[in-house]
C-alpha cells in the first residue's frame, strides 16, 4: 500500500478559484504526478463540507468509484482517510484511491476562522451539543487551544517563548517555499510582541488562513512499482478521539495521539527515534508541542525544552525536522490541513523536497489533529514497506 501520486493546487491566495476548482486542480496534478488517468481511480475520499460531498465531487470529476469515504472529524480527517484507504487496499476492497480536499477559505470567508465565535454558530442555527454551552461564553477556537496551552504551562512550566520557538522554526522552513503565505524570518521576540489573541497564544502562535487544495493517491505496491516514482509505503496508522468540546478534554495536556502514536509506531515496527521528519498539523504552536510529547518524541512535560534545545530541533539539521514546507503556521492552511501533511511527507521520502530536503529521509510521520484537539490520527510512511 503506497502513496503513488500527490498534487497541490495553486496557492496560497486564489480568489479566482472555488473550493471544487481547487480540488479538481489538485486531483489532475496528482494524476499527472502518478502517471494515472481518472478511470484508474476506484475509490474517493473527501471531507469538510456538507453531506454527500464526496459523491458530488465524484460526479464533478466524472468518476464512478466503488469505494467511498467521508469521515469528517476536523483537520485530521485526511489521516483517517489514509488509514481507511490503507486498510481497504490491503483488503482488496479498492485498488487506487484518491483523497481530495480543497477550500477557498481565505477568499470566501476571510480570516475569522479562529476568532469568529469558534467557526460558526451565528444566524440562529441550532448549535450541536455541547457547543450550545460554549458559544454563549464568548470562547473562540483559538481560546480553546489557549486554555489547553495555559494548563500545560501550569503543570510543566512550559514557557510562551518555547511555544514561540515553534513558529520561528516553521517560518525558517517557509522561507524556502515559494508558495508559502509568509516567508520573512521572524524571531521569538516577534512572536511574543505580536498581539495576544487569547492568552497565552499570540497572533504568530496561530496558523494562517489561506486558499488551497491537495490530492493524495494511494494504490497497491504492485502498481506503485509500475509507476514512475519511488514508492512511499504506508507502514502504520491509528487514530482516535477523547472529546469534542474543549470542556470535555479531561486532561488538556494529553491528546488521543498518546494512543494513536504508539499504536501506529508498533504496526510500523519503529520507535520515535527512527523518524527522520515530521509533518504535524500545526493549527497552533501548542498543538505541535503537546503532540510531540504524546507521540514520544519528547517526554511528557518536556516538549518546550525539546523544541527550543539544540538551536531548535524542528529545523533542518535538528533532531526532528518538522513541517518542512512551512506548515500551517506560515505556508498553507485552507480551513483544514491534514492532507497537506501526507503530501509533504511524500515529497521528503521521494527526495523531491529541494532546498527543504531532509537528507536521506526514510521514515516520516504525518499526524493530524482536528476540532478542539479532539481527534488525532497518526500515519507512518517509509521508503520501504513493513
Amino acid at each position, binding site marked *: 500500500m503506497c502513496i503513488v501520486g500527490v498534487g497541490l493546487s495553486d496557492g496560497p491566495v486564489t480568489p479566482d478559484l472555488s473550493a471544487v476548482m481547487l480540488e479538481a486542480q489538485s486531483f489532475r496534478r496528482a494524476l499527472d504526478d502518478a502517471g494515472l488517468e481518472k478511470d484508474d481511480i476506484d475509490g474517493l475520499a473527501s471531507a469538510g463540507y456538507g453531506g454527500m460531498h464526496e459523491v458530488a465531487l465524484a460526479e464533478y470529476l466524472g468518476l464512478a468509484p466503488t469505494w467511498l469515504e467521508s469521515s469528517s472529524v476536523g483537520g485530521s480527517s485526511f489521516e483517517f482517510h489514509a488509514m481507511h484507504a490503507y486498510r481497504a487496499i490491503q483488503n482488496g476492497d479498492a485498488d487506487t484511491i484518491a483523497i481530495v480536499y480543497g477550500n477557498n477559505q481565505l477568499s470566501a470567508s476571510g480570516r475569522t476562522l479562529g476568532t469568529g465565535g469558534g467557526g460558526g454558530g451565528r444566524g*440562529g442555527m441550532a448549535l450541536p451539543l455541547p457547543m*450550545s454551552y460554549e458559544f454563549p461564553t*464568548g470562547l*473562540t477556537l483559538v481560546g480553546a487551544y489557549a*486554555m489547553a496551552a495555559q*494548563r500545560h504551562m501550569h503543570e510543566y512550566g512550559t514557557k510562551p517563548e518555547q511555544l514561540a520557538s515553534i513558529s520561528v522554526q516553521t517560518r525558517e522552513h517557509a522561507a524556502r517555499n515559494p508558495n508559502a503565505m509568509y516567508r520573512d524570518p521572524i524571531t521569538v521576540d516577534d512572536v511574543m510582541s505580536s498581539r495576544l*489573541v487569547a492568552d497565552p497564544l499570540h497572533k504568530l502562535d496561530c496558523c494562517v488562513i489561506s486558499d488551497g487544495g491537495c490530492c493524495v493517491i494511494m494504490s497497491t505496491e504492485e502498481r506503485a512499482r509500475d509507476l514512475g516514482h519511488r514508492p512511499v509505503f504506508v507502514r502504520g496508522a491509528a487514530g482516535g478521539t477523547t472529546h469534542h468540546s*474543549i470542556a470535555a478534554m479531561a486532561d488538556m495536556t494529553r491528546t488521543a495521539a498518546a494512543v494513536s502514536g504508539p499504536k501506529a509506531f508498533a504496526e510500523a515496527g519503529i520507535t520515535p527515534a527512527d523518524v527522520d521528519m515530521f509533518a504535524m498539523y500545526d493549527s497552533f504552536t501548542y498543538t505541535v508541542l503537546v503532540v510531540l510529547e504524546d507521540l514520544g518524541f519528547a517526554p511528557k512535560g518536556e516538549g518546550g525544552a525539546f523544541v527550543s534545545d539544540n538551536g531548535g530541533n524542528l529545523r533542518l539539521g535538528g533532531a526532528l525536522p518538522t513541517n518542512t514546507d512551512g506548515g500551517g503556521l506560515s505556508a498553507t492552511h485552507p480551513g483544514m490541513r491534514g492532507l497537506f501533511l501526507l503530501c509533504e511527507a511524500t515529497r521528503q521520502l521521494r527526495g523531491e523536497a529541494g532546498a527543504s530536503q531532509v537528507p536521506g529521509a526514510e521514515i516520516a510521520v504525518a499526524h493530524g489533529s482536528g476540532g478542539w484537539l479532539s481527534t488525532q490520527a497518526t500515519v507512518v510512511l517509509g521508503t520501504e514497506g513493513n
Partner: protein
Amino acid sequence: MAEAAPAGWTEVPKWLVPRPTKEDREYWEGAGRGELRIQRCLTCGRHQHYARMLCSHCGKQTLEWVTASGRGTVYSFTVIRQNGVPPFNERIPFVVATVDLDEDGARLIAPMPELAPDEARVGMRVRAAFRPAPEGLGFVDFAAE
C-alpha cells in the same frame, strides 16, 4: 440570586438566547432562578454537565438532577482578546475559565466577567454567578471566591 453583570454583558442578542431542549431545560431554568443544576448518577455517584440520557462516567441510565454548590476550582483559563462576533467584540478582553466543580466529575466552561484578566490563575477558587437571559432562563458565570 442573579447578580448585576458588568456593562456589555446584559445584552442578549437573539442568536444567544438559550433554546432549552427536552434534556437540558432544567439547567437553563435553574440558572434563571440562581441555581446551578447538574446531573448526579445514582450508580457511580459522579456528576456531569451538560445533561445527557446516560451517565458519561459509567454509562448507566440512573441520573437525577441536583443543585450544585456553585463552588469550584479553575482548571484552566484564557483571556479572550479577539472575538469578531457581537456582543463579544464589545466585551473584550474577558476571562473564560474551565471550572471543575466541587461535585466530582462535573466541569463547566464559563466567563468570569468581573475578573481582571491579570488576576486569573489556574487553581483559583471560584463560585457561580448568574446572569439573566430572556424567558426566565439564565447564564452561568463564575466569580472569584
